[in-house]
């Protein structure tokens, strides 16, 4: 293994397989206190690994090697705890530490999903109450906590919508999706067996009732929209749109990814929404884990309730119990084994209880306030995609960059040099070179100002010193990464 120090404390680190050396021992498993069972005495030799099988170079490292390895890796990462993370549509708010402590209580972590119901009443009560809180916040009639993520929730909702029409004896085959939608919306629709009918949003960034009316027919199962939409604007015509869709017997699916703007301010049920997924890892402060796990509960109106996945939680007197398929003949079945991402639910439950109604409302209004501050402060330096007050996020285009030779991606990378995680870029697709900034409610004015100042400097640099942007980032562990090479010459694993 080569010397691992690059520049002072800016250390290099090999792959764990390259740190490995034969015969090293890490954390040893316990000594067995029962007689050693000879595998060959009961299992055919052909079913067993060869004695000397090294599992293709499986690592052998000391405990300290492992500790240093992952500690170093963590130092190459940027998280919300490291700094400002205004990744639009992802709601990178602070993940409260008390939630982490709660989720690590052994009374939660040590529960087996099949243990007797009498021995896990606290867990069932927590899930039951969380369902009730989410119903109250969204206005929906019933909630399932089973889906593992937002996209999983979308799929669950679309399965229920398909089942609803099938149950009525008149299956429908199309889903209308606006051009501002997250990529998961059309992908989930296709996976659920629907044909996607794309429609354009209007010049004001909003969906026009006429556009919906033009394509809505009796073969359309649902309109899938995000509210506030991905431009950060509230779909003001949603009630009218819902009326048009409902008049033809269709349903409204809302992608609830942006619910952080609405908590305590407006309910989806009042807008005519029939089905929505909530992202506990966005709105309800659970951490993103470097890519998950999240949790994507789905709320529905009464007529979709029979189709919810099993099991359901019921309260009978003071006891909580699980109700299965036998008593739920119309259920779509299961989205996964067991009951959902329970430890994520624990965090979301702690968050809701800590904030209460006032706190949730304050979170939403502050998120809106911060986004509008961003919008107002940067609109002289960057072109706003739509010049109207926004909800939780502000979207800019690359229009003012034209002719500079600098692209949105260069701005994103330059922000890293200033110590910020870049916003979401090139999404939504309807905005050219989009820069989507979602500050969230948890950031301080000083942080917002520092970011604004960085963006302004970058706007100047784009004109005066564009190479600074094109060569960015320059203060990171690696310089700009060649993503094209990764796809063209795939190396997807280490090999001995």
């Amino acid at each position, binding site marked *: 293994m080569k010397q691992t120090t690059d520049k002072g404390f800016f250390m290099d680190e090999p792959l764990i397989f390259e740190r490995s050396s034969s015969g090293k021992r890490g954390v040893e498993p316990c000594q067995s206190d029962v007689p050693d069972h000879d595998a060959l005495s009961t299992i055919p030799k052909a079913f067993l690994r060869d004695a000397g099988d090294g599992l293709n170079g*499986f690592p052998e490292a000391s405990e300290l090697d492992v500790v240093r390895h992952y500690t170093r890796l963590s130092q190459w990462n940027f998280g919300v705890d490291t700094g400002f993370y205004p990744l639009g549509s992802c709601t990178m708010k602070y993940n409260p530490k008390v939630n982490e402590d709660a989720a690590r209580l052994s009374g939660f972590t040590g529960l087996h999903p099949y243990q007797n119901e009498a021995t896990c009443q606290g867990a069932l009560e927590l899930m039951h109450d969380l369902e009730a809180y989410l119903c109250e916040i969204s206005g929906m009639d019933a909630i399932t906590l089973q889906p593992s993520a937002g996209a999983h929730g979308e799929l669950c909702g679309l399965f229920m919508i398909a089942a609803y029409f099938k149950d009525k004896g008149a299956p429908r085959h199309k889903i209308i999706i606006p051009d501002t939608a997250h990529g998961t919306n059309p992908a989930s629709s296709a996976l659920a*067996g629907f044909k996607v009918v794309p429609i354009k949003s209007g010049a004001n960034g909003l969906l026009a009732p006429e556009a919906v009316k033009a394509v809505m027919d009796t073969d359309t199962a649902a309109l899938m929209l995000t509210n506030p939409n991905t431009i950060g604007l509230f779909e003001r015509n949603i009630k009218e749109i819902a009326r048009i869709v409902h008049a033809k017997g269709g349903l409204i699916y809302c992608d609830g990814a942006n619910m952080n703007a609405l908590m305590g301010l407006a309910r989806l049920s009042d807008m005519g929404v029939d089905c929505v997924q909530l992202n506990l890892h966005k709105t309800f402060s659970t951490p993103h884990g470097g890519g998950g796990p999240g949790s994507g509960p789905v709320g529905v109106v009464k007529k979709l309730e029979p189709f919810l996945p099993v099991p359901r939680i019921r309260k009978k007197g003071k006891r909580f119990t699980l109700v299965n398929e036998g008593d739920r003949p119309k259920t779509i079945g299961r989205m996964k084994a067991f009951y959902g991402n329970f430890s994520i639910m624990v965090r979301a439950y702690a968050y809701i209880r800590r904030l209460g109604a006032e706190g949730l409302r304050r979170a939403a209004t502050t998120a809106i306030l911060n986004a509008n501050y961003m919008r107002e402060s940067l609109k002289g330096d960057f072109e706003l995609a739509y010049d109207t007050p926004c909800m939780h996020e502000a979207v800019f285009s690359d229009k003012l960059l034209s002719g500079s030779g600098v692209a949105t991606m260069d701005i994103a990378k330059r922000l890293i040099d200033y110590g910020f995680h870049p916003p979401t870029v090139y999404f939504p697709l309807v905005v050219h070179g989009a820069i989507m900034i979602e500050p969230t409610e948890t950031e301080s004015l000083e942080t917002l100002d520092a970011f604004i100042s960085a963006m302004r400097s970058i706007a100047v640099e784009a004109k005066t010193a564009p190479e600074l942007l094109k060569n960015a980032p320059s203060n990171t562990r690696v310089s700009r990464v060649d993503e094209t090479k990764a796809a063209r010459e795939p190396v997807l694993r280490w090999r001995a």
Partner: protein
Amino acid sequence: MPYVSLSDKDVAHILKTIGIDSTETLLGTLPDDLRIKDKLNLPDGLSEQETMALMRSMAAKNSPVGQGGLSSFLGAGAYNHYVPSTVEHLAGRSEFYTAYTPYQPEISQGTLMAMFEYQTLVCQMTSMDVANASLYDGASATAEAVLMARRVTGRGRVALSGALHPEYQRTIKTYLKSASEDITEALFCTEAGTTLVEAADAAMGDEPACLVVQHPNFFGCLEDVSALAEAVHRKKGLLIIVVTEPVSLGLLKPPGEVGCDIVVGDNQSFGNALNFGGPYLGFMATKTEFVRQLPGRIIGQTVDRDGRRAFCLTFSTREQHIRRERATSNICTNHGLCALQAAIHLTSIGLGGLKALSRVNLSKAHYLRQRLLETKVCRPAFSAPIFNEFTVRLDKDADAVLQRLLKKDILAGLTLDRFYPALTNHLLIAATELNSKDDIDRFAEELSNS
């Protein structure tokens, strides 16, 4: 107010900058008839201390497994294993857990390299060529594998072993709702407890997309994977092997060496607590030739502008944010932190540790089975060899026995008639390194007394 970082002075400054008098003005973009007039009907907010006290009181209403609580012999897709201290301390570093999906590789090399290593570990254990960076759980991963097999083969028919975890079977059926007539069941042999090759052959028809077999199967029995591989390959379908207890991979011939085309399963056993069923860790590995059909995130190795080794998300043209309705899957958020935990667990115990862990599990289960059979209260339900889980048939009412043992703080296993009505008084029982000899002896003793 918790978690908001603005003072009243800051709010005033922001309002002034925006050019409005009050936050209410901003909320004017919400149509009046859609505004909530009063406040939400939720319990009042709590201080942090009160929140933690509340959470403790909720947790105290449960009886967890281990830690002087319940002595558990439950498995069935959720296994109670010892998690090394390194896992909590390293995966608990918030640079890892407060990051998003690594879209910006220059400031995400930690997550990316760890996931690249995790993909490698999965390949090493399964002897497959490539693995993705995780899916949700074993059941949904198996459903994704079935969809993938259909894309690869261009065929519809899906044969599921009857000894595949019933909740996995149910998940696949939900995912394939629009084509449920294409799902057939390959019956298991009621004597051996394993999938009958002849039954698999019949279930597959002439043109199967895939045969799905769990190994060790739901009853704990080891399948003859080579024979099943031959049967499905004769018809040019794919063999999907499902592994719900990956500790077995330290001992058993890896799926890649016995004819498997796609391996899926759940890596919860490594680094992830029981957590009442989630989050767990769906994994998927396959052959190089099928890599473009893999669902989920994949991390690749590349270089930066200065030629240094670097890692990034790759093959994203398969994914929803690029390909939208033509994507291989809709998955976006996966279970990255669970994968990190598994990787830390596996690298902490290393090659020797994994093999030793497998042997201890095998020994514990065989000792437990022997002790239980000695009681004469139960008989082996099936004759096939086992790893760390097995099925017995009781000579008395299984539910009553479970209740009596629960009074002695023992979770004796899972009654199988909840999934298989014909398997009355059958108990599925697992043992891991966390079941001590004393616990096992006590279980046997209480069973004879029951």
